[in-house]
């Protein structure tokens, strides 16, 4: 009884505290744990390295947010990343001067792959989880087939600069992530496209009845996710180079980050900044688990638990 009455009479600023996205507290807690484990991470250099490493996931999670807000999933992004990295390596191996065309090719293929996902979901009425799962398999198979099962070619340093270099100690990858995040924030929160995206996710039938081009909006959301995968692939291959497993697992990390950031699966809710915090938190958590000496299988266990707990929490909050 007393608890309920206290809650009803909470002063405004405490109620304000309750409305803070829990992801910021989680991020703070994880960063605090990292710093307590090793104070060196308070320094500028190490902190920037952490942020540079998180950049591909930030970009990918923001792209994933658009699809989640529209009421779908995009499981194809991880193998799209691997596919693009392998294609670029093949192309740039024979003609290393084609760095900018290769980057353009990545973006175009990313957009096209997203468009196909969106068309299949919108017009063939295939649930997005199945459509993008099919795309995942196709891209994975195509990438391995084209490269013969093993990485071919190296990426020239000019291509890798975006993911690897720093300007005045500030990682270029982080600049890319910030620019992409800002653009996404403007599109999602300041345009009529953004409002329509929320409507489509919250109630597609109502959206259609009020004149929204539901199919068009959905296709655009998947294209945005494809674009984010392309940018993320460029950043990731810049950071660590070519491998046939480069993008493995990134689709689930992106979904985990979005959910951690308060995006509601099945659509209609979520915003850019908390999702970026979610990506940072997830990456910071992996770093923390590394510092604590957790092996990779345990990271998977933790990630699985996070997805379940975050979804359960957001269901209760509703």
């Amino acid at each position, binding site marked *: 009884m007393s608890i309920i009455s206290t809650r009803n009479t909470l002063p405004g600023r405490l109620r304000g505290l309750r409305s803070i996205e829990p992801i910021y507290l989680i991020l703070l807690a994880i960063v605090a744990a990292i710093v307590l484990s090793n104070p060196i*991470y308070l320094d500028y250099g190490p902190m920037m390295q952490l942020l540079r490493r998180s950049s591909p996931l930030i970009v990918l999670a923001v792209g994933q947010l658009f699809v989640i807000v529209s009421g779908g999933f995009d499981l194809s992004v991880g193998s799209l990343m691997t596919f693009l990295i392998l294609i670029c390596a093949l192309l740039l191996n024979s003609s290393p001067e084609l760095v900018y065309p290769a980057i353009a090719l990545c973006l175009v293929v990313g957009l096209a792959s997203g468009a196909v996902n969106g068309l299949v979901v919108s017009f063939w009425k295939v649930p997005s989880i199945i459509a993008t799962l099919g795309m995942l398999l196709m891209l994975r198979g195509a990438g391995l087939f084209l490269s013969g099962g093993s990485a071919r070619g190296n990426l020239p340093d000019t291509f890798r600069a975006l993911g690897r270099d720093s300007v005045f100690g500030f990682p270029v990858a982080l600049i890319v992530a910030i620019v992409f995040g800002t653009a996404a924030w403007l599109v999602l929160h300041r345009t009529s496209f953004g409002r329509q995206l929320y409507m489509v996710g919250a109630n597609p039938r109502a959206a259609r009845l009020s004149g929204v081009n539901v199919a068009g909006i959905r296709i655009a959301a998947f294209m945005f996710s494809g674009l984010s995968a392309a940018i993320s692939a460029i950043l990731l291959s810049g950071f660590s180079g070519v491998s046939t497993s480069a993008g493995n697992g990134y689709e689930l990390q992106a979904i985990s980050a979005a959910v951690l950031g308060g995006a509601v699966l099945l659509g209609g809710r979520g915003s850019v900044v908390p999702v970026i915090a979610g990506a940072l938190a997830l990456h910071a958590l992996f770093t923390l688990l590394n510092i604590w000496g957790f092996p990779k299988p345990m990271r998977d266990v933790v990630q699985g638990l996070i997805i379940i707990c975050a979804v359960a929490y957001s269901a209760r909050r509703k």
Partner: protein
Amino acid sequence: MSLKRTFKGVLAAAFAASMAMSALAQDNKFFDQAEHDRQIAMLDATPIGDGDQPWLQSMADNFRDTSKYKKDGPWTVCFSNAGIFNPWQVVGYKTMQEEIKLHSNIKDFIVTDGEGKDDKQIADIDDLLASKKCDILLVTPNTTAALTPAVERACAQLPVIVFSRGVATECPVTFITPIGGYAYGAQAARFIVDALPDGGNVLALRISPGVDVLETRWSAAERIFAANPKIKVIGSEFTNDDRAIAKSIVEDYLQRFGQIDAVWMDAGATSVAAIEAFEDIGVEIPIFTGEDQQDFLAKWQEKDLTAIAPTYPTFQWRTAIIAATQILSGEKVPGPIWYLPQPTITVETLDKYTQANMPPQHYALCGCEDMAGYPEVWGGTK
């Protein structure tokens, strides 16, 4: 706040589980002293056979009679492959396919792909046996224990050759293997110890726990480091063979310890990513161990590193086909284990093995340079 509490609980549970796992990992089930000593001794032995064709050499004089398998050709050779899921297998399988072309008395080469699954590969072997088409069966087991009964069933019907990974039975006519994982790990660790007379910080990067051919590498190295009190192993981490994880781990350790004097690796696929962590932070690249992948050799040459590359030669895929024709011709072959040489790439032999025209994950010890399709078949350019 229930999420936070749950989260704390999760972390506590995960921590407990990880403690239990690391306790398991310290268990010595992967260490066999007698086998270890035998491999170390074999490193100094002189191989029997022509040095220009190491895939035909044997480290031991254990040739066995195979006249009971003699059969008129042309033959059908069957191969149950565990799968093609890493560059080592890609290079080996291509070499094997080229070797097949050199044998006009092999009329059919039937290959099944186990896709990295034990159950699929067991079914594959049973299907191959049931087809009655095979004159001889080659097997690269996906995992040791699971494939042993299937290999035993095959042995009862026809001659069997196992390579790449082992099985827990000596029924195959021969098991083709390089000297072994203890020798591999020890070579790399000895190099580090010798190069650091005043001691230093050593970081060990491993692919994943629980794989016998990898565990042996680390258990031999671990013992050598432990026997040298000046060497401090600051960490032994799993990269899952992922370049981004390897690079991140090295960055984290550089932050934590400030100084890394040597990096020991149980495989070379992520060596270059690990080296890049030093380059990006702007500190000197320390002593490194890698493998015979071209990207590592190229980096070694370019940066003039203090490095060594033990190998697990892919030329054994060639040996398997040659052994099959020898057995079906009734010629003597080494058995029950055919120990192949396990060359180590050092600064003296680096130039010989660095091939700028080959893909980054091409293994220098493919023994394939004299084959008809070289270099294009392996993805290289002339």
